[in-house]
């Protein structure tokens, strides 16, 4: 029988640094909740809002797969591998921190905030050579489908990472229902609702709610209203 966990939006950690407001689904920085450490290999899901003209100064990472999904506005990325890039809504950025990387992320538009999801997964391979990639997604216009944006395979749709994880974005019209089939035994799926209301396994989820499901091969997602959501399939043991 499927196991599930619900994280309502208003139970997330909140950090307000003035220039950054961060809603944290799992323990992060000053937010510590022993009941909310991770969902399998998914360790960080931060829903961040960066004030215009501000951002994260240069800081290090190692041995973590770091995915950023801009929702509104832009972020300017610079890193110790020499990459300089701007990412905006409709794109996805991935960094394999591996042996160590320094990077900064700034909102270059002083007139409006940048909103993005910051997602960290434990890697399945340690001390790899750091890498950076970003791609334009074609998910934004495809409706009523699960659109893959991340996988473990370099030649598959979306970006790739060092973990047996698959991410899908979905934009469903109200009343649309689809079954998600997991790729790998032992994986679970964490669903994060970006907009609207959906129902999964009898649980109604609203905007910014999170829902984890595991010990199942598949499950149905039904949109109650027009809805957008992210499905993150990750190993539960890693």
């Amino acid at each position, binding site marked *: 029988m499927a196991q599930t966990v619900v994280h309502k939006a208003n139970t997330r950690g909140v950090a307000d640094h003035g220039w950054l407001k961060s809603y944290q689904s799992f323990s992060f920085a000053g937010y510590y909740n*022993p009941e909310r*450490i991770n969902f399998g290999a998914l360790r960080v899901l931060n829903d961040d809002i960066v004030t215009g003209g501000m951002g994260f100064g240069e800081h*290090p990472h*190692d041995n973590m797969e770091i995915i950023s999904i801009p929702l509104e506005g832009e972020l300017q990325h610079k890193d110790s591998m020499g990459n300089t890039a701007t990412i905006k809504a409709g794109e996805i950025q991935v960094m394999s921190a591996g042996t*160590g990387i320094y990077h900064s992320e700034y909102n270059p538009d002083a007139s409006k905030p940048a909103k993005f999801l910051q997602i*960290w997964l434990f890697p399945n391979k340690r001390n790899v050579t750091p890498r950076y990639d970003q791609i334009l997604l074609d998910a934004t216009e495809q409706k009523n489908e699960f659109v893959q944006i991340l996988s473990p395979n370099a030649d598959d749709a979306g970006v790739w990472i060092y973990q047996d994880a698959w991410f899908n974005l979905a934009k469903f019209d109200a009343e649309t229902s689809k079954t998600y089939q997991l790729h790998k035994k032992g994986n679970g799926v964490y669903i994060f609702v970006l907009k609207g209301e959906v129902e999964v396994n009898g649980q109604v989820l609203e905007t910014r709610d999170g829902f984890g499901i595991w010990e199942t091969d598949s499950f149905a997602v039904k949109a109650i209203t027009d809805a957008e959501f992210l499905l993150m399939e990750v190993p539960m043991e890693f």
Partner: protein
Amino acid sequence: MQVIEILIVGTNKPILATIERLINKEGQWVATLSYSVKEATSICLEKDFGLLLIGAGLGEDEEVALKQQIAILRPKLPVVKHYGGGSGLLFAEIYQALATS
């Protein structure tokens, strides 16, 4: 307030320096750095620590060797692996390790 001594071991000096700064900033924790398994085990013999934190740069074989040696030298010393290299996960890792030790 009880001060907890935390021994950090790793080889990536910039990341270790970041971890050291973050730990010392907390007030109730004091960090000591070591840059190899040999150095860490040597320091452990001379001084009591409340936590051993494995930072960036050690290979998996080195980590296994370190844990084996600590299990013999200081069997009650909790050992925790730090992921991510910065402030994001550090405090939760330390809180968890201390709570379960």
